């Protein structure tokens, strides 16, 4: 049973619109991550957070932004969506304890920008 929730699961939107992908976890994890996944490609880390008010950019450059005002929420925002943003976005989290670097993933948000 998933303890990390992503909404919306599917979103089709026009170019230029602002969108926010929500990610919430009920496990009290400090560390949260956003990955971008395209077919046939590895998952690319685009953002991560080590706790409240902490956000960092990942390996893959992304025009999206994130915020971490509360431990359980880690939303991702695109101010002006473009077709190149079409992808699946996966949110993940893990606890901040030694030896427990196992990521728990949400079900993903599949974004299509027309």
């Amino acid at each position: 049973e998933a303890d990390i929730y992503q909404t919306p699961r599917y979103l089709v939107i026009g170019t230029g619109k602002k969108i926010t992908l929500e990610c919430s976890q009920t496990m009290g994890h400090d560390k949260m991550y956003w990955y971008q996944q395209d077919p046939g490609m590895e998952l690319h880390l685009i953002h991560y957070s080590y706790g409240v008010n902490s956000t960092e950019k990942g390996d893959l450059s992304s025009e999206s932004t994130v915020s971490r005002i509360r431990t359980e929420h880690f939303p991702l925002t695109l101010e002006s969506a473009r077709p190149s943003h079409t992808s699946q976005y996966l949110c993940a989290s893990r606890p901040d304890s030694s030896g427990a670097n196992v990521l728990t993933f949400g079900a993903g948000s599949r974004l299509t920008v027309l």
Partner: protein
Amino acid sequence: AQSVTQPDIHITVSEGASLELRCNYSYGATPYLFWYVQSPGQGLQLLLKYFSGDTLVQGIKGFEAEFKRSQSSFNLRKPSVHWSDAAEYFCAVGGAVGGSNYKLTFGKGTLLTVNP
């Protein structure tokens, strides 16, 4: 830099046959290794992990994987595949918890098709 290679993009097996999915990694220290499975329209579910100790690791759904340091490999195996195993499988490598640069690097995945 750490990296993961999954040489097989797509594998097809018959139900009941054995399965081995290959994974090779590059990492400068002792790696933490993972196998995740992704069913269509779903997120990634952890199958098994290797941190230390016994190099043969048991996971969920009857899967196992063997860490071979000399070959930089962490291949996933299952003796008898079920139709419900059809999915995409991702191998990942990561470093020690607590490091400021900790991250998990994934391979491109292997799509498994199971024929009846």
